[in-house]
């Protein structure tokens, strides 16, 4: 099945009770499939059509606050249009799970893969997972709700798929049974909810002296708590289904590596293929896959790069005026903690294919001690 079909199956298995979404390429086939499931009564959810992504998140906000497990999905400009409501959902501490099919931002119009859309949402208080396979895209919906709904977390989570490279690619996926999914993910029991029998106001007002600052501090604390929840839930998932996603950061062929590339999503998958080939030629290289970008796996990275001679960060996104979005964060995390060059590579913008030779070039630049930021396979020089 395709990545988008796998996501829709994950939503079904998670017993989601409410879905609201606005279609946008390449997310469309997720919500088409879910609308079909709702129409055929294969899933007990209510599906509400809206006129925009801003309203979709508004609807999901309200249903989740009523204690119903809720879901939405979007991409690119749709996600940007939703931005304001992302802050509200996180600030209201609603454990919504959303799928984002990573697509570039115009102009010019372009429907292909790029992570700038979700990188733009890093400060909204949502947890962020970047998936590398259709199986992971399905499994992350189940794990995502369990992490988000952990009592000491209570924050929303967005799960990313690269446009087309996952969303429209078919590959074998193991489907958990509904019974297995139910035993892994219990029903939502929201500790606070809209209740006509006990009327309370939510999200009202706070002066500078009010609890505003403390509430933000508490969100940061919960984000910190999520690290443990992620590790615990990932372990429980591995015990139940036999698939181990190794928490926030995945290490690939790192045990005796001298050089490593840090990547996410499907770029990490192709990177692993290249690492395997370079290893066969005797080169001591490895790969670190950032699964969670929020919370950021800083401690895990510091530990993983110890003993390395150099690393590089591969970004399929750009933060104009600095470097690739992940590159900045990795450099900040390692500053003063690891004395190695950190190269920054921007590649694959607007869906440009990142080829095997591009990966080889990056590994060779890392081995040469490159510590600047550059583009890979872009015309007009670096």
């Amino acid at each position, binding site marked *: 099945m395709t990545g988008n079909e796998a996501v829709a199956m994950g939503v079904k298995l998670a017993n989601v009770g409410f879905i609201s979404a606005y279609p946008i390429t390449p997310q469309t086939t997720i919500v088409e499939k879910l609308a079909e499931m709702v129409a055929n009564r294969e899933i007990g959810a209510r599906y509400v059509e809206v006129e925009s992504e801003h309203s979709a998140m508004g609807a999901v906000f309200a249903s989740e606050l009523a204690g119903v497990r809720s879901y939405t999905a979007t991409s690119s400009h749709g996600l940007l249009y939703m931005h304001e409501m992302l802050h509200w959902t996180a600030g209201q501490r609603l454990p919504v799970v959303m799928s984002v099919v990573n697509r570039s931002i115009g102009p010019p119009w372009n*429907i292909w893969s790029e992570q700038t859309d979700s990188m733009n949402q890093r400060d909204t208080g949502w947890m962020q997972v970047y998936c590398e396979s259709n199986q992971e895209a399905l499994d992350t919906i189940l794990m995502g709700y369990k992490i988000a709904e952990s009592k000491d977390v209570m924050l929303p989570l967005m799960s990313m798929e690269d446009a*087309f*490279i996952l969303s*429209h*690619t*078919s*590959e*074998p996926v193991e489907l958990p049974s509904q019974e297995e999914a139910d035993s892994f993910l219990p029903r939502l029991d929201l500790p606070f909810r809209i209740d006509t029998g006990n009327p309370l106001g939510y999200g009202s007002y706070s002066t500078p002296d009010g609890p505003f600052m403390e509430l933000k501090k508490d969100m940061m604390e919960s984000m910190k708590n999520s690290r443990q929840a992620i590790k615990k839930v990932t372990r429980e998932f591995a015990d139940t289904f036999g698939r181990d996603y190794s928490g926030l950061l995945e290490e690939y062929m790192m045990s005796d590596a001298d050089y490593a590339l840090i990547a996410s999503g*499907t*770029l990490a*998958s*192709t990177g*692993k*293929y290249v690492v*395997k080939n370079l290893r066969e030629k005797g080169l001591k290289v490895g790969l670190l896959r950032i699964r969670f970008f929020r919370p950021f796996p800083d401690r895990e990275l510091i530990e993983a790069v110890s003993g390395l001679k150099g690393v590089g960060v591969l970004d399929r996104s750009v933060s104009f005026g600095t470097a690739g979005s992940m590159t900045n964060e990795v450099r900040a995390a390692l500053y003063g903690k690891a004395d190695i060059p950190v190269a920054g590579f921007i590649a694959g913008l607007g869906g440009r*294919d*990142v*080829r*095997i030779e591009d990966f080889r070039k990056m590994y060779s630049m890392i081995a040469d001690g490159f510590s600047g930021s550059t583009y890979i396979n872009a015309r007009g020089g670096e």
Partner: protein
Amino acid sequence: MFEIRFHGRGGQGAVTASKILALAAFKEGKYAVSFPFFGTERRGAPVTAFTRIDPDPILLKTQVYTPDAVIVLDSYVMNSADVMNGLDSEGFLIVNTSADPEKISRSFRVATVDATAIAVDHGLGNRTNPIINTAMIGALSKVTGIISRNAALSAVRELSPRKKDENASAADQAYDLVKIGWAE
């Protein structure tokens, strides 16, 4: 790893063909992935789709640059797209045409099949808009041997949204009728 690239036009079923092939390989215990390359996708525009088949899980997620086989669903695409790009002399080139393989090229292992005629005979689409992807799967099975005849037919049946028997029969007939242009 065996890599296949499909060339067709929007609406001809290149993407579905790539999925049928992947499913057939999966049925025979192999790992397979299929994916489209969408340009400005609309009916009639050139479309490319890919399938990768391997005994091990497939990590590589780039486009296919050095295909082992190229399948051309619409021979007119050959005028506007470099369908042979990356194909070496041992590579398979399978074209939907009534012409003989020698007329297409002598540089590759070329096979031709009149999938349009087969599709029309089976009531799949019509002369101007025939559904030829399932016949091409039958030809591909015979020419490359990467999937067995049985796996091909069973995958065609499973992924055809309607006229399952007709599609399977078209694939079966194409298996027999494909013209192989090199000495085996």
